[in-house]
């Protein structure tokens, strides 16, 4: 029982990070209907910005951590908007396949530029917050895990409120329903798409810093696996669906942690893809998604 609770907690803190990343995929898919492959690498850039800032703020202070987190989120938001402006906007009316190939290109460009600029070897991540272990009976939880779960929850609720309660959020939902119709009622889709990229990338940046402080080593390819898994999480929850992405992330994180703790631990990385294939075969709309009819 203790071990079960322990693994559940570990899984939730991993799942919270997947959820943050999955939101970016699902939001971009919602407005543009394509998989932003470069999202995982924005996550990586977030971790590296965190690394850069983390060495320059006093360790173990609250405002230092806030600077690191907000700095990473800002840089990633700008990076996300830049990618959208330079690579995706010129292809707005091209076939999906072309946009997809471009996204893969952007992803590889960030990864390999990262390898040249930062070096391919893994780097240690500075401990920004003081690390403490809490004990509940025999269950152990580190302060980092608490921060990851709490912060993810705050960001998720914040996003939910933003999308449901603000005017820009309303416009975002309108663009994702029907871009042309939204344009007709006075929404500028380019602005909304840029905002979507900024928010999604900022969440990825936050995810990058949180991931790096929980698994304290970073390298330019660190985003690939979490990115793919977060995408699976978005599909699992129903792509385009914000609560679905959060749910999918948590489920996948917990599942993966339990498999990692079992005798099949070497197959841990294959689990996410197995889930993806199963979901696409048996329930392609995901857990919370709704089926859409294809019109000719």
């Amino acid at each position, binding site marked *: 029982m203790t071990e079960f609770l322990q693994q559940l907690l570990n899984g939730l803190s991993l799942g919270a990070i997947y959820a943050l990343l999955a939101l970016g995929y699902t939001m971009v898919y919602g407005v543009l209907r*394509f*998989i932003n492959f470069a999202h995982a690498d924005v996550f990586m850039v977030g971790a590296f910005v965190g690394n850069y800032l983390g060495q320059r703020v006093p360790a173990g202070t609250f405002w230092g951590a806030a600077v690191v987190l907000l700095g990473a989120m800002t840089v990633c938001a700008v990076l996300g908007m830049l990618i959208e402006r330079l*690579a995706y906007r*010129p*292809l707005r009316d*091209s*076939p*999906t*396949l*072309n*946009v*997809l*190939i*471009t996204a*893969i*290109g*952007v*992803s*590889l*460009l960030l*990864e*390999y*530029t990262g*390898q*040249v600029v930062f070096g391919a070897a893994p780097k240690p991540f500075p401990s920004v917050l003081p690390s403490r272990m809490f004990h509940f009976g025999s269950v152990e939880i580190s302060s980092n895990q608490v921060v990851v779960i709490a912060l993810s929850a705050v960001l998720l609720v914040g996003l939910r409120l933003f999308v449901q309660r603000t005017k820009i959020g309303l416009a975002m939902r309108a663009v994702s329903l029907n871009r042309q119709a939204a344009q007709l009622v006075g929404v500028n889709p380019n602005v909304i798409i840029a905002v979507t990229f900024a928010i999604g990338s900022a969440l990825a940046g936050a995810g990058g810093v949180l991931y790096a402080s929980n698994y304290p080593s970073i390298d330019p390819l660190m985003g*690939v696996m979490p990115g*793919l898994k977060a*995408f*699976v999480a978005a*599909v699992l929850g129903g792509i385009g669906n914000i609560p679905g992405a959060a749910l999918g992330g948590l489920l996948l994180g917990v599942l993966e942690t339990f498999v990692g703790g079992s005798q099949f631990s*070497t*197959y841990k*990385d*294959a689990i*996410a*893809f*197995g889930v*993806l*294939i199963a979901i*696409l*075969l048996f329930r*392609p709309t995901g857990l919370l998604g709704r089926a859409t009819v*294809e019109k*000719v």
Partner: protein
Amino acid sequence: MRYAPHLALAFALLAAGLINHFADSIDPYILDVATNVGINVILAVSLNLVNGYTGQFSLGHAGFMSVGAYLSAAVSLFAGPHLLGDSPSFWAQNVFFLGALVAGGLGAALAGAVVGIPSLRLRGDYLALVTLGFGEIIRVILQNLDVVGGALGLNAIPYFTNIFWVVTWAAVTIFVVLCLVNSTYGRGFLATHDDEIAAASIGLNSTRYKIVAFVIGAFFAGIAGGLYGHFKMTITPTGFDFTKSIEIVVMVILGGMGQTLGVVLAAILLTLLPEFLRPVAEYRMIIYSALLILLMLMRPQGLFYLRPKRAALK
């Protein structure tokens, strides 16, 4: 004109035999590069059948290549000594190698069917991800199979690949793909690419076309894998990762999707390029990725788009 492809194939086979006959007097470095070029041509042309002609974006070609490489290497390593003995004759060795290659190709084709039948119901980016996922699953399984060396891979594979087999298989791949696509049956691949719903409405079974393209593509990827394994003499699961798949995809896109001649040229160019770019080898992948983005923005039909009459990409 009707027999032109068959004549070309016969000519290519003759040329392969001739080159092989004089292989001893050719610089080994050039032979090495030519072998790499040939293997990449097989990979790119076979992927082009799936990604280009049929329009199904697959990111798992390296996975099928690894299945073929492992299977044919395993045949050579485990069955070879029993069947061939200590000093096999020239013919026995090459007939055995052909068998090992075909076994690898058939294994990869089977893997292609297993992957394709469930996932080809999906489109575009979903299919890309599922094929990527399958490629990764194949890699994880190979890493965990102790029979084939686990993470260390297979070593001491006999050196059977020669320029004859490489040129022959490259010619056969191009021949099969071209004849298939230009046949009455093969027009269905193009129809599936152009408009799936319209193709279905005139009674074409687009799912079956996709699966056939996928299985044939996987077969030749397996053959290429077998040639690669018996050329490098050592294979590891990480040698067939996502990066390798991307490399093949870049060849197809650079050459122009659905343009066999362009894809062959792109495969040759992209294999030779790193040889000339040795001093800047660390920037190779940056150049590749920048090339992908620029191509999609400026020339989505590919660098070697030679026939303007058929709009490959709208």
